[in-house]
């Protein structure tokens, strides 16, 4: 299994994508949200699992706000 598959099935990613898609509709397309969240997840790969969901969502929100 590759890292990309890991990230695709990561609950931290799925939850963040679901919430941020709602939050940024219609300014940002869902595909863009998914890409940004997955890239944030990759940037945060060393972070302990317990802190991951919050940090992924927070970083993705910051990045999406700059593009929206």
């Amino acid at each position, binding site marked *: 299994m590759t890292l990309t598959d890991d990230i695709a099935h990561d609950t931290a990613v799925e939850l963040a994508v679901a919430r941020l898609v709602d939050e940024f509709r219609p300014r940002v397309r869902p595909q863009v949200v998914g890409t940004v969240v997955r890239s944030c997840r990759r*940037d945060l790969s*060393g*972070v302990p699992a317990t*802190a991951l969901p919050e*940090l992924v969502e927070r*970083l993705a929100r*910051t*990045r999406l706000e700059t593009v929206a």
Partner: protein
Amino acid sequence: MGSVDVSGVRHTLPDGRVLLDDVSFRVGDGARAALVGENGAGKTTLLRIVAGDLVPEAGTVSRSGGLGVMRQFIGSVRDDTTVQRFLVDLAAPAVRAAWDAVEAAELALMETDDEPAQLAYADALAQWGDVGGYDTEVTWDTVTVAALGVPYDRCKYRELSTLSGGEQKRLALEALLRGPEQVLLLDEPDNYLDVPGKRWLEQRLRETRKTVLFVSHDRELLATVADRVVTVEGGTAWVHGGGFAGYAEARSARHERMAELRRRWEEEHQRLVDLVRTLQQQAANSPDMASRYRAMQTRLAKFEADGPPPEKPPEQEVSMRLRGGRTGVRAVVAEQLELSGLMRPFDLEVWYGDRVGVLGANGAGKSHFLRLLAGQDVAHSGAWRLGARVVPGFFAQTHAHPEWLDRTPVDLLWHGEPGRPGVDRGRAMAVLRRYGLTAVADQPFRTLSGGQQARLQVVMLELSGATLLLLDEPTDNLDVLSAEALEEALAAFDGTVLAVTHDRWFARSFDRFLVFGADGRVYESVEPVFDEARVARAR
């Protein structure tokens, strides 16, 4: 596996005096070494050198197995340090650094919530995980449950100053004994512990497989735990390879041997000097003798250059003169006295001349009771009074005199305070000399060792003319000799003594005991009672 190797260490005080010279000893894997010596001999300085806080002027200290340090002040923390910060400070340097980085990143994130701040915070968290921070937090949970009876999450923001001295010590000891460090340096780990706490400490130190170097003045603890004794005296250190039981004998044998070597050296020196003089006269008449004279001169010069063997360390002289005075027959009377929330009402009559040991568990209100009798503001109900001509003199447990910190002993004695007239410098120096405090007479109070501060408090009691001594753990910081001097002084004191103590040996010199029970009951006993359970309080 851990060990400490100290080799040829030398340390000079800021005023130029050599405190320690040529100190060498090794504490091997799993050894439990006691570090003993008179107050001010340099035990704490030596521990600080071993801990790496001080760099020795000469010599080396090598350590293996990671170092955990419990400092002497633990037990008297009165600032706003939290339980969490306290545990972080006791952890390994890598854990400490990772924690500080997480805190700094958190603060930065609160101020600016941008991408670099978030990534820095994520980085700090990753580092925290890498150094084993999450496992450490699990250990801290075990530690707080063991020491305080509550989980870490419930007490981490609690201020350390709300814990008793014994609870602070126990928290530190649990953290160090359960931590990964294999070498523990413990500076007076038994201070502030009650007797069940001391027994617990003795058992834990006997069980641990870690290497332990500890300072203690409690003879019972020394006898039970130490398997070797490092003595700091005469500006250097020597090691007794056995337990404390044979220590006194070994020490006096060593002193005799040192005196004997010194005597022999002086005899040999005198013989060589005489020989040189004789040969000098003979050389004047005979050229043959001239070469022998020169050879003998060279021999004497070499002998003197090698120097004499060290002198036997001087015996410490402490002479305390607590005079007191005749008071009313009833020195202290309490009727249905209750310190709010601490105990059930009790009656008490203490007669002139009584020696009352105040015993009981930590947190039962013993110190508050003494403070009340000393005239301090302590919430209570019921009645109490002191008899005719009874003047209380109070010795505080934690040396909690912030107003003294920057003042010198001479200054404190010169100014006096209510109930204690000031004395001129000459008289102050004379009394300080009897307590072995001349050398520190002009040093700020904060720079005095725990034992020196304790002795200074006894000086003040002596000068105050107190007829009722209220002593809160007076032997805690005193070395064995000073404690014996205090005991003799108390025996000669004309007046009444109430002393809170957890010192099993000191307690045996009292003739009545007032026991503060864990259930709030206060009762009298003719025998010392040391196994009152800890007081259970809602936390």
